[in-house]
């Protein structure tokens, strides 16, 4: 946005504010997102079943990815323990349905609350620590949970896991079965939209701006009077919440929960998604999910070692644009604006 050099305080002040507002929420983004949402809603019934299953999986994992972006992309906290919350969310649902005969909504609520509580407790210990120690302690927590889940197979089913029959989804006026792929599709989409809206609002809110200033300079943020620990803890809990929601939806989709949901893969994948797509962008990690999932679904059939390609891709992307794909697109837009 070009600045008109005028001495009038009001004009320059408002252009600054406009710029501020546009940086707060890119005007184009809502339209693009709306278009994408409409497309996703409309093509649901027409997708071939294989692709539809894949899209459902992608949608569920995008929730996980966006939550992780709040942690890594917005407050610079590189947690290696998100699988704790993913697994907790999954088991919250599985155990609630198996032992409490809970209906779907109750199971989801239990799963999400369990994740929040766990995120709060682990965060109290972990968030206080500085960068490297934070990474280490989250990794330690992950190990504890994973080994416990393997060992306590009387509760968790261990790595064999527990299968569940998913109760029907009651919407008050009607009951829908999640065994109907279309219902599963829109169910996942509903939560994706809600998560996206919540997180976008958080990112554009004062809370989100404080997150960003913590990321940019957490020391200085302290000197501005912010209890940085509390804010980082909030970010940690948010990430845990969405990881748990994602895990719950994933368990519902698979009708299954196992110790594998606590495994290291689910701690590392979010990092990969965020790196590919771009930190601090919310949509970026979703692109990361899409790419990883497509690779796993299709490329794996051609070459089982597809992860090598992914690795090379990550290196290329990080060399070209450290802020991932979305970061690159945004910086190109900026350059075009400058020239034009």
């Amino acid at each position, binding site marked *: 946005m070009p600045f008109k050099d005028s001495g009038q305080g009001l004009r320059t002040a408002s252009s600054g*504010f406009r710029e501020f507002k546009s940086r707060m929420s890119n005007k184009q983004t809502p339209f693009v997102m709306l278009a994408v949402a409409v497309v996703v809603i409309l093509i649901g019934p027409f997708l071939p079943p294989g692709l539809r299953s894949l899209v459902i999986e992608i949608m569920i994992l995008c929730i996980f990815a966006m939550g992780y972006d709040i942690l890594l992309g917005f407050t610079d906290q590189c947690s290696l323990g998100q699988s704790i919350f993913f697994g907790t969310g999954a088991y919250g649902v599985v155990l609630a349905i198996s032992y409490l005969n809970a209906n779907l909504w109750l199971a989801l609520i239990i799963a999400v609350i369990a994740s929040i509580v766990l995120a709060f407790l682990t965060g109290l210990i972990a968030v206080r620590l500085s960068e490297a120690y934070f990474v280490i302690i989250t990794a330690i927590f992950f190990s504890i949970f994973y080994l416990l889940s393997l060992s306590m197979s009387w509760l968790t089913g261990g790595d064999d896991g527990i299968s569940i029959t998913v109760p029907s989804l009651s919407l008050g006026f009607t009951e829908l079965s999640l065994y109907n792929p279309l219902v599963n599709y829109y169910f996942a989409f509903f939560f994706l939209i809600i998560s996206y809206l919540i997180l976008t609002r958080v990112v554009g809110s*004062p*809370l989100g701006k404080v997150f960003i200033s913590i990321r940019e300079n957490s020391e200085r943020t302290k*000197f501005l*009077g912010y209890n940085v620990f509390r804010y980082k803890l909030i970010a940690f809990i948010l990430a845990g919440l969405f990881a748990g929601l994602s895990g719950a939806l994933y368990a519902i989709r698979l009708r299954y929960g196992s110790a594998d949901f606590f495994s290291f893969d689910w701690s590392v994948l979010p990092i990969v998604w965020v790196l590919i797509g771009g930190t601090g962008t919310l949509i970026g990690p979703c692109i990361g999910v899409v790419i990883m999932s497509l690779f796993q679904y299709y490329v794996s059939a051609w070459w089982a070692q597809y992860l090598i390609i992914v690795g090379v891709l990550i290196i290329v992307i990080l060399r070209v644009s450290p802020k991932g794909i979305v970061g690159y697109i945004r910086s190109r837009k900026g350059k075009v604006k400058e020239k034009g």
Partner: protein
Amino acid sequence: MKLLETAGLTKNFGGLVAVDEVNFAVEKGELKGIIGPNGAGKTTFFNLITGSLKPTRGKVSLNGEDISGLPPHLISRKGISRTFQITNIFPEMTVYESVWAGVNSRAKQPWNPFIHAGAATDISRKTKEICQMVGLDSKMGELSTNLSHGDQRVLEIAIALSTEPILLLLDEPTQGVSPKEIDTMISVVRKVSEVAAVVLIEHNMDIVLELSDNITVLENGRTVTEGSPSEISANREVQKIFLGIE
């Protein structure tokens, strides 16, 4: 009652005494300078006041209240703000956003996740006012990393101002600033001293002598002497310290 008072403030690092029994006071509305050679303990002194470091001995009081050893964010809330010798800004945030962050910290709900950040008109207004006060209002949309060094040093002060402090600690604001931009800096410091008491660490003698009401000289962590600008510039001991004149 003094606005800020330190009594016997001391900081030991193992065997090294960085700040040695410093008694210091600032009145409301004063602009006090602190000068001293490198390693005199000036920045450590600031660190003790603002909570980066805990004093080994001694006390810091603000308006009579003991604030020794409080963490940085609480001291900021009490009304003390500081700038840093090495520019300590928010690289990928714009001028506006950087100042906004500080103003927001004093809002009733700085952690509000529900409203859109731009919707808080009070905060927007105050942010613009501060940017205007320091003369950065034409550059509000610029990314902090893209500013000239001089403008960054001004931004450094604007960020410190954003929390409406009653006491502002400026740590070598003209550090690395080009001669062209020094005048701007001087007028900024003057303007700022109209809204808050200021303690100014500076190496640039002319500026300190011109701006300060009162100057304290530190060497090896101890107060050597204190006085008005004219007294200090005439002081033989001070001349010895700085100019090596016998």
